[in-house]
């Protein structure tokens, strides 16, 4: 049976299903059992599964990540949760130098089924150190799998798939997706790690988007509709492996490409998508591909600068115009009236 759930509830549901099916699954992280339920994504799980399986931890990301690797080696299936991706930067050795490599370097003798869950911050003054979108770093590392679901359905399905995978998976959520609602079946199901999702079919231009930017891309596609442009939107929910075939097939159909990423451009996933399209579909491309990414500066905290910093649907529309060789239209970049750009939704009140 399916029902409407928020993305946060879908995550919670995914945890409950995975934990019920497999007693080896364990959640760990600062504040995982907190009264606010880790942005609502863990509410009630400690009550349901006990303090041994849903546990808080010391403020020690590096060591605790190593601990979950060892726990995985000895038969558990841990998920370590970080309220911000930025905190996981303290744990790059265990994630990238250890977990990603153990199966390979020990010739298959060890297995590390572990999920590194990280949330991308944004808005309400999250600023330079609570909003870094470094998913591209993880996608750069062989041995890891990396996913960034956009819909509640995918959030639950990919979470369960990640927990059930025998390899280390980096599972990344955008804070501005948590309140989004969508159909989510009850019970167990998985979404395979890797394949992209066709978020919207179209014929004139391909927009490959990551995480929250899928929403902006869909909005852009609507605006483009009214300009007579049919945009195809690909939700690149799998970063590693990346669905090269889906990108190639779409670009071969449309001949035009815009990549919208919620992160910096230089040596990021947006560059990768352009490289993939160029390598696989060069002859189909009718115009120069374009990127819509963060400006190349740290995230500013204050609302006036943050509004300027984050790319919106209008930036995507403008980029599509460029791929069509249309003249730029300054109104593309107009700040949307009545929307507070540092809030994920109108109901939100600060602080985070």
């Amino acid at each position: 049976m399916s029902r409407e759930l928020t993305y946060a509830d879908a995550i919670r549901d995914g945890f409950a299903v995975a934990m019920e099916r497999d007693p080896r699954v364990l959640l760990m992280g600062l504040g995982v059992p907190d009264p606010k339920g880790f942005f609502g994504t863990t509410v009630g799980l400690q009550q349901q599964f006990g303090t041994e399986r849903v546990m808080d931890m010391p403020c020690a990301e590096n060591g605790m990540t190593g601990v979950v690797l060892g726990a995985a080696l000895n038969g558990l299936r841990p998920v370590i949760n970080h309220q911000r991706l930025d905190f996981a930067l303290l744990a790059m050795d265990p994630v990238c130098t250890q977990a990603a490599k153990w199966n390979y370097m020990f010739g298959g003798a060890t297995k590390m089924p572990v999920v590194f869950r990280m949330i991308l911050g944004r808005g309400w003054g999250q600023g330079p150190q609570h909003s870094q979108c470094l998913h591209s770093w993880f996608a750069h590392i062989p041995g890891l799998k990396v996913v960034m679901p956009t819909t509640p359905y995918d959030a639950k399905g990919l979470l369960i798939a990640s927990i059930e995978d025998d390899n280390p998976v980096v599972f990344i959520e955008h804070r501005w997706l948590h309140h989004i609602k969508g159909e989510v079946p009850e019970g167990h199901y998985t979404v395979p790690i890797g394949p992209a999702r066709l978020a919207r079919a179209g014929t004139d231009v391909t927009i490959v988007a990551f995480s929250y930017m899928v929403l902006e891309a869909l909005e852009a596609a609507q605006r483009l509709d009214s300009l007579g442009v049919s945009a195809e939107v690909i939700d690149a929910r799998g970063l590693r492996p990346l669905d090269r075939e889906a990108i190639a097939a779409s670009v071969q159909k449309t001949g035009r490409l815009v990549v919208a990423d919620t992160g910096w451009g230089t040596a990021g996933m947006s560059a990768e998508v352009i490289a993939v399209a160029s390598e696989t579909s060069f002859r189909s491309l009718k115009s120069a591909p374009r990127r819509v990414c963060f400006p190349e500066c740290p995230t500013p905290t204050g609302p006036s600068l943050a509004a300027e910093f984050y790319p919106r649907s209008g930036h995507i529309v403008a980029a599509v115009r460029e791929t069509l060789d249309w003249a730029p239209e300054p109104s593309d970049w107009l700040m949307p009236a009545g929307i507070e750009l540092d809030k994920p939704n109108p109901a939100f009140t600060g602080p985070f």
Partner: protein
Amino acid sequence: MIDLAPSSTSSETELSHRLLESMVRIRMIEEAIAERYSAQQMRCPVHLSIGQEAASAGVCAALRHTDQAMSGHRSHAHYLAKGGNLRAMIAELYGRETGCCKGRGGSMHLVDVDAGFVGAVPIVGSTIPIATGLAFADRLLRRDRVTVAFLGEAATEEGVFHESANFASLHQLPIVYVCENNLYSVYSPLEVRQPAHREVFEVAAGHGIRSRQIDGNDPLAVYHLMKESVAYARSGEGPVFLELKTYRWREHCGPGFDNHIGYRTEAEYQAWRERDAVASTERRLRDAGAYDEERIDRHREHVEGEIIEAFAAAQRAPFPAGSTLMNHVYSEGSHP
């Protein structure tokens, strides 16, 4: 800004009044932030120190203006006690061009280099080695200066605290680590993070560092211990670690109270409210017949004026223009 450095002749009474003034000022400013926060115009997380003011007041009163300090996410009180500019801080909370970070930092990134407050960042533990590096440079350059690293007790769980403590102990650096142990990290009590069978200050002692634990709600005691610690560090004998036991009254992040949500008990909160440093300092002075009520009233009035003025100025100030987004990514010009 009130000059907190006590003259060498100042009596305990004078000292108590100064500490009280410092605490009152911090409390009033934090409360003003809390009151105005719901207007949703300070669009950044805020971590208030209400209940913990004795630590900042006592510690900074024992420092020279030229000494330096760094802090983490909960830094308003440290910034203010060290002499940071109030107007620049409030403007920063409002994200304005006149803020201490020109609107780029917000509450979690205060800085006032002139006041010796060299920076605060919200990644738990990250300023601890940086502060240690300040002291290291001072030592190499033979400067007569002490650095204070303010930290919460959760920061002692981060490995980088230990790496810093080891280095400071190795090179006998002039630094004082001031740890405000308020029993919680967000909603997580100490017992899910640190073993009950040892105290926080004992971990620091393991590094061969002079370590002390003290009631962090007693500003006079904090001041005297800090005075002695700073002298020790300044004289080149090595680093000091101080654990100040205290309690945060309000929610971890934001302006409200949150005892009802269940991570701590109302009784625990009430017990700590009884130990309010502002009230007890007043009481102590009053009991000794030494309380200068008029002076403190005047002080309150003065601070009230400062506050009104700072908030008004902040709200009048312009937001940084979008066109300045890319400014300051790099420092202009290189050496030499």
